[in-house]
């Protein structure tokens, strides 16, 4: 990891959806950096803004979503200032993406080969047909698809779910991008296939030296593949740190809640799962203080009044919670 020169630098990014009911702040000021060859997991429940944040990096925000503030820098270039043509060159070439549902993400009326080679030819018009085809076959073999040459001429409906996700990965990596954004790539697959795909992504990441942003709500997947983890809640980062710190030394009450709500195989099986009480906040009308405050068992007065700042709780480990500042709070605020 080249500490001083990050691949991706997101600063105070804000994304809002302008709906008839009002502005929904889906992402409300998040900052992080991602190094070369690093795998970062972004964890959070539905609606926490984790996908929206990723989509804004690659310029795929759907109407009425809009980036309202902050900056995204990719290798020093300002991604948000790209013209549509620059954005098009950027997508698929330097950053590519794989999605949640491989069943619907491939075009049903074109062959796998056609869709794979298209990813190449739309960035490099000088590449010959044979060359593109050769490269596509190589990629299919790389992601573990047998009979690649025959498979090239098949349609997506002739592939199983796991195979389709493999093909998607091949398509995403065919231009050797520096960053791969994986938006819940294993969620729609059954568990054995999930493990295979994760294994594949892990080995490809090492082989191709691609950085990965791995978006998921599945903490097990995060532990499997990520170097660093960002935990999001209601459009903000609540905790960020190395994967071991997050799992073994979680600091934020939300992260702690997430960890106690998943079943574990390595402990005596009869332990109770503790769900996080309540429901996520209404982003149309967010609370003034900490977004997690209303659901937090350790909520203090100040939590409902002011948003918590980040506290450095360890090496490269930050957590946004007033509990870390408890000692310094004025009297009456710490209850």
């Amino acid at each position, binding site marked *: 990891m080249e500490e001083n020169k990050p691949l991706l630098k997101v600063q105070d990014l804000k994304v809002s959806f302008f709906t008839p009911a009002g502005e929904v702040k889906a992402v409300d000021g998040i900052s992080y950096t991602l190094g070369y060859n690093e795998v970062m997991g972004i964890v959070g429940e539905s609606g926490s803004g984790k996908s929206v944040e990723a989509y804004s990096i*690659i310029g*795929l925000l759907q109407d009425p979503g809009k980036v309202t503030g902050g900056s995204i820098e990719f290798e020093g270039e300002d991604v948000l200032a790209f013209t549509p043509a620059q954005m*098009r*060159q*950027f*997508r*698929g*070439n330097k950053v*590519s*993406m794989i*999605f949640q*549902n491989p069943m*619907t*993400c*491939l*075009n*049903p*009326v*074109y062959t796998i080969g056609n869709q794979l080679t*298209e*990813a190449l030819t*739309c*960035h490099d018009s000088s590449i010959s047909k044979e060359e593109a085809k050769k490269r596509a076959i190589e990629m299919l073999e790389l992601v573990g698809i047998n009979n690649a040459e025959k498979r090239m001429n098949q*349609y997506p*409906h002739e592939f199983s779910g796991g195979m389709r996700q493999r093909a*998607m990965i091949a*398509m*995403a990596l065919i231009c050797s991008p520096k960053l791969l954004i994986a938006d819940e790539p294993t969620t729609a697959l059954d568990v054995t296939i999930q493990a295979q795909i994760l294994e594949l992504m892990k080995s490809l990441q090492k082989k191709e030296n691609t950085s990965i942003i791995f978006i998921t709500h599945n903490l097990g997947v995060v532990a499997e593949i990520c170097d660093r983890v960002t935990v999001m809640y209601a459009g903000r980062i609540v905790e960020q740190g190395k994967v071991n710190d997050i799992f073994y030394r979680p600091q934020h009450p939300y992260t702690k809640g997430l960890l106690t709500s998943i079943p574990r195989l390595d402990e005596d099986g009869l332990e109770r799962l503790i769900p996080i009480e309540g429901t996520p906040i209404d982003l149309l009308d967010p609370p003034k203080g900490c977004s997690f405050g209303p659901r937090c068992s350790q909520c203090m007065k100040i939590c409902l009044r002011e948003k918590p700042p980040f506290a450095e709780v360890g090496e490269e480990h930050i957590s946004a919670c007033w509990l870390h500042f408890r000692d310094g709070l004025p009297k009456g605020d710490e209850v």
Partner: protein
Amino acid sequence: MVAYILKRVAGSIAILLLIMVVTFLLMNAIPGSPFLTEKSTPEQIALAEAKYGLDKPLYVQLWNYIKNYCVGDLGTSLKMQEGTPVKDIIFHQGKFALSIKLGACALVIAVLIGIPLGCIAAYYRGSWIDGLLRVLTTVGVAVPTFVLAALLLVVFSVNLNWFPTLSGSLPDAKSYVLPVISLSFYYTCYIAKLMRTSMLDAIHQDYIRTAKAKGVKTHILVLKHALRNSLIPVITYLGPVLAGIITGSFVVESTFSIPGLGKYFVQCVLSRDYPVIMATTVVLSALVIFMMLIVDITYKLVDPRITLTAKEE
């Protein structure tokens, strides 16, 4: 594929037989007779009916039709052009060709204009272009052909004198313009509407997002990825369109005085010219059945997921 086509052709013959039976029963259910005029006496009618075999029991008459059709004999006209073989009326007097020419032009126009219009409307959804097209296509679907045809005739032929009022046997390109517009306008608008909906649906599919994430150019996104996926509903609609264009051409052929099959078909029903009714129905049905086959084969070409033959168990 060959086996499939053969199977379909066999099925088509069965359908045509059924159509013959139904047509025969229907035309005999209409009161009246080809020989019924104010001056004719019952004896004269009976005599004429005996001459053409119309006094025989219905099943015998039907059987005669089927027998003759099998050897390509479509009978002779009783009334419209007495004594002329029906085959000559339909094929050799250019009626069929005239209607087909007109229908084919209208179909091509409807497809070539309707599909792009639908794509444009979907691509610029919500903009003034979409709004304008929506108004235009809604009007086009709502205005009856006879109103449109009359309007075009009055404005462009009578007032502006740009096009002939009588198109006749379509001697030149100019004479095609107004009939083809009248005939195709409804279908153009309907196809555009259908295409817009279908395209909008396709644009929001996950594979479009995937293609975008790959960095595919916008026009390729629409013309390659979205278009082919959104064509199925339009192709489905094209089968009935053909039937509509051929039979619906009656109004247009009458308005522009074109001696085509559509007009003739209605006239022969009115004068109870049984053999001509039968022959026109069968010929038009065969045409529609053939087009349906083409449509089904086109499905397969557009969408590889569609299988024409039943899957082996």
